[in-house]
């Protein structure tokens, strides 16, 4: 409401200034819109000398440190550490999002302001960077700064360190129980139903959606009565162009695929640096699921139809975005 008042004032001001009389009649009016337009929390910073902002940052950092080392912070039952995610993990991923991949986010308004929703996205890129970028996209671009809770493969939770970070960043195992629990709690859940088939597909198959598992995500969304938001990610396919797959080595290491890219494993650790492609993340029109009867989640025909509908929508959006794309890197 404050904004609605501010805009006419700002527009009026230049027109009335020449009349002179009006300006003097309402001297406090011009500064007011300025203060209102700037977020109120910046107000003390603007008034204090230049050192104050720095001081506040140090104070904030120290109080953060104090809470962390005394253990006085909260995690939810999935192990999601909101404070750590907001203050540390997000800040680590943000440069990658803003500067490196220069992600363009479209259709963020398709994500509901509140309540549960299931975001279904395509999966690609050899390493699941697309999931992490999706998380940053939702948090930084959504007006309500919503947190995306990703469903990750069991491999993530088998690896030391990775599982710990994944849980703290709010990810959990891709299983119906966890997904339903999160959706019923009103969380935003992200799933990539292609799984390893999508992320580990050869470069030649890029932007060809793989099979969507058994479509379990649809029945979960139906049971929870939450909308499904299809999401298409363009750009992630080219970060590690996978030209080969050392299957024997993968089997030996117990991983689903062992990627061979033009630079990896040829250049060793340098080969693990992703190519700086330009990304686009497009959220599509939500598909409502609350109109179905309670037993609809048990209907395989309906499940297949809805799965296909979601899949088609993502695939079409992918093709459209690819046509619009000028180049892979710009």
């Amino acid at each position, binding site marked *: 409401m404050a904004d609605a008042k501010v805009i006419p004032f700002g527009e009026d001001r230049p027109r009335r200034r020449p009349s002179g009389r009006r300006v003097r009649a309402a001297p406090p009016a011009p500064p007011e819109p300025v203060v209102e337009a700037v977020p109120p929390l910046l107000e003390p910073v603007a008034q204090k000398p230049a050192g104050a902002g720095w001081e506040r940052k140090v*104070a*904030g950092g120290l109080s953060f440190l104090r809470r962390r080392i005394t253990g006085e912070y*909260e995690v939810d039952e*999935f*192990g999601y550490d909101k404070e750590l995610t907001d203050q540390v993990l997000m800040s680590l991923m943000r440069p990658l999002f803003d500067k490196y991949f220069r992600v363009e986010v479209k259709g963020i308004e398709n994500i509901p302001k509140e309540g549960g929703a299931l975001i279904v996205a395509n999966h690609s890129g050899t390493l699941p960077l697309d999931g992490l970028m999706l998380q940053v996209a939702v948090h930084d671009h959504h007006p309500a700064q919503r947190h995306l809770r990703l469903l990750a493969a*069991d491999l993530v939770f*088998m690896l030391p360190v990775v599982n710990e970070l994944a849980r703290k960043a709010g990810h959990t195992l891709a299983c119906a129980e966890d997904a339903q629990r999160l959706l019923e709690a009103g969380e935003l859940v992200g799933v990539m139903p292609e799984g390893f088939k999508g992320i580990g597909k050869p470069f030649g198959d890029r932007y060809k959606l793989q099979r969507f598992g058994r479509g379990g995500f649809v029945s979960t969304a139906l049971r929870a009565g939450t909308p499904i938001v299809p999401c298409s990610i363009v750009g992630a396919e080219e970060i590690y162009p996978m030209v080969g797959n050392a299957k024997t080595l993968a089997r030996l290491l117990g991983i689903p695929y062992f990627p061979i890219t033009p630079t990896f494993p040829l250049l060793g650790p340098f080969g693990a640096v992703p190519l700086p492609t330009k990304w686009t993340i497009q959220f599509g029109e939500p598909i409502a699921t609350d109109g179905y009867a309670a037993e609809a989640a048990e209907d395989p025909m309906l499940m297949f139809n809805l799965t296909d509908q979601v899949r088609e929508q993502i695939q079409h959006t992918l093709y459209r975005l690819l046509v619009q794309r000028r180049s892979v890197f710009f």
Partner: protein
Amino acid sequence: MGKVVLVTGASRQLGGRFVRRIQRDPEVERVIAVDAVAPPHRLGSAEFVRTDIRQSAIARVLAEHAVDTVVHLAVTGSGAGTGGAHSTVKETNVIGTMQLLGACQKSPTVRRLVVKSSTSVYGGTSRDPAVFTETTEPKSLPAGGFAKDAAEVEGYVRGFARRRPDVAVCVLRFANILGPFADSALAEYFSIPVMPTVLGYDPRLQFVHEDDVLDVLRLAAREPRRGTLNSGTFNIAGDGVLLLSQCSRRLGRPTLPLLLPAVTWAGSVLRAVGVTDFSPEQVRLLTHGRVVETTQMREVLGFEPVYTTAETFADFARSRGSGLLPPERVARAVDRVAGMLNVDGSDVDVDVDVAEGAKR
């Protein structure tokens, strides 16, 4: 009709407290405390019968006293006292339960059976859902140790419930029990000055306070209140979750992250010197953690724990004294740094900083 309650495992700390507590209930007429060893603590007016539940003598005790409620607490992770060999513990857990259930089946007077179990029956692997409900099937059955005992005990109890549908059977799956008097393996673990942890894992833990354990056992041993049902299987845990890293920081005990094989090895060394019972079961808990849902406990059993997981842990931490790096001292050190820099770090609102960060 007055109630005669038989409590097994009365020589354990928890059993003893439960025996003393339940005597005060007006509807309880007599309490028969049973264990294989004499209790080191008082049992009040309860009648102590020294008998081994692994022997059929327990049937005679049930008949002699016309017991109508059996509270089976002799399902434990470690032997009475320290250094109980696991084979003995296992026998008491499994054979003891079989004997006790056999005796109950023969007894015409028994109306109610309460069994203490553990959430460790769910196991815990990386492929399990984050939160276990009462109906979750474990992905892999526990290979050994207490978890396997508890799973087997529950199996026998289910068989008993089928054979005697007239007996109300309540199985309570407790999360890790902590409190000022806790003598469990986990309590011992939290008392090690430098706690070995598994490198790269930060398990989610849930605790239930001893006082809440006593309350819920009492609730289960009684006639159900209106609108509640106290037969069935229930998860019992305090609200909320603590990570192991949080626990160590709140205790002020530094951790020593070790690779998983090294932790198993360190555990066997610690067990050999008798410092703590660091079993493979324990290592599994400290790797993958375990969180259970407690909706059934609230809505069906009608029990609200007084202590949350964090409060339970705080109560436990107070009773243990501080570790090498007490949180107060660490916090003071940070405040001192803040004082030197002439900034006040203690009361800055985080949300402001978060919002500021996001705006940029």
